């Protein structure tokens, strides 16, 4: 059984790097990522699962980090927006967002990009319906979504699944 004390130790892998972090029971995964690890690409919008700004990949699946306790990430593999770039090269999804002008204020972008990345890893050539479904857990207040859809379609066209 885990230590029954107000301070808990979490061991997890974030962006391929192992971490050992001391947290309080009520610390969320979002707080661990932003405040303990200083990875501020992950955003907090609503704090209750509605907006998708806090989305990270947990064992490859998009999840709302605002609704997960940090301790629940024990032993799991997390990818944040900072983890997509490899050897100084942007992920093709990130590049497509730039090329299509799919970023305005940018608040929704990290989550959108991660959900798109997970989709393309699962379905290398998604159709329009599958793309819409994949980003249905994200709100964007700026773009009107069409540029985002175009960007994901474009990334899909040149897609080779990672790893």
């Amino acid at each position, binding site marked *: *059984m885990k230590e029954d004390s107000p301070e808990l130790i979490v061991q997890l892998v974030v962006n391929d790097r192992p971490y050992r972090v001391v947290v309080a*029971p009520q610390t969320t995964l979002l707080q661990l990522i932003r405040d303990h690890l200083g990875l501020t690409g992950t955003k907090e919008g609503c704090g209750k699962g509605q907006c*998708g700004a806090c989305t990270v990949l947990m064992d490859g699946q998009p*999840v709302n980090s605002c*609704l997960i*306790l940090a*301790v629940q990430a*024990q032993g799991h593999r997390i990818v944040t927006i900072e983890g997509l770039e490899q050897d100084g090269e942007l992920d093709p999804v990130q590049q497509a967002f730039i090329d299509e002008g799919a970023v305005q204020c940018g608040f929704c972008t990290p989550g959108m990009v991660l959900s798109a990345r997970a989709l393309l890893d699962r379905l290398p050539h998604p159709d329009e319906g599958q793309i819409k479904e994949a980003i*249905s*857990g994200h709100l964007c207040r700026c773009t009107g979504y069409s540029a985002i859809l175009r960007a994901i379609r474009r990334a899909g066209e040149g897609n080779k699944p990672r790893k």
Partner: protein
Amino acid sequence: MDVFRYLAPESVEETLQLLDEGAGGVKVLAGGTDLLVQMKERGLRPGLVLDVAGLHELRGIRMEGKYVWIGPLTTHWDLAHSALIREHGLALAQGASKVGSPQIRHRGTIGGNIANASPAADTVPPLVVLEAEVELRSLNGSHWLPVESLMEGPSRTALRPKELITGVRFPHRAPGSRSQYEKFGSRQALSIAVASVAVAAVQEKGRFARVRIALGSVSPTVVRATRVEEILTGEALGEDLIAQATASVAQQCRPIDDVRGSAWYRCQLVEALLARILLCWGEEWMAG
């Protein structure tokens, strides 16, 4: 969120022990998509949170004798993508696929959806029409209870604080049987059902048998539409029958007016959703 004690028990036995000792102040944590919202927003303050997510024996989908067995920690995502669930209980796969968003479906579990007992819970009408049961276990033993009898009111169930849901099961599909779930929300993702309908039935020589209909979001709990079940039973599907069935379904609702829709609107919706299912089956029955 306020401070609480957190424990991650290593077995079901240990969980039951801790539930037994802790009485009312303990909350079981599965995916957390209901519990954490309630703790953040609605002032729920458990003294002890028992994280059961690591109990692998409570996860999975498999055939067990004449049942399809589902571990309570199975996520909506896994339910929606399971070939076994699609084959034996299509309505449940459809319900699970309509929960929240992909992110919520990756975390939210069937056990949490049942225990939370919202009249809008998307897996509950399908479970009710599939004649599903839940296994409730405490230190004193375990028993199976129909999902239908578990629901006592909004957020109120027959689940006792010392009990854990340790299994969900429904009988495998009889020849000629089918099921379907339709939900209406104010938009396609991230919207709680304004009304929903699940139907399961067997087609015997072109006639309805073993009809079960459950309605979501139109009463304090998910309810059966027994009057409509009677109307359909023994009859062949046709336009008149569909008209008769949809005309009487609203009488089986006790809807409320709220921000999502008026009582009148919800009644119109259940009629339309039921008609949609029956029309869709009608076409296929006549074609086949």
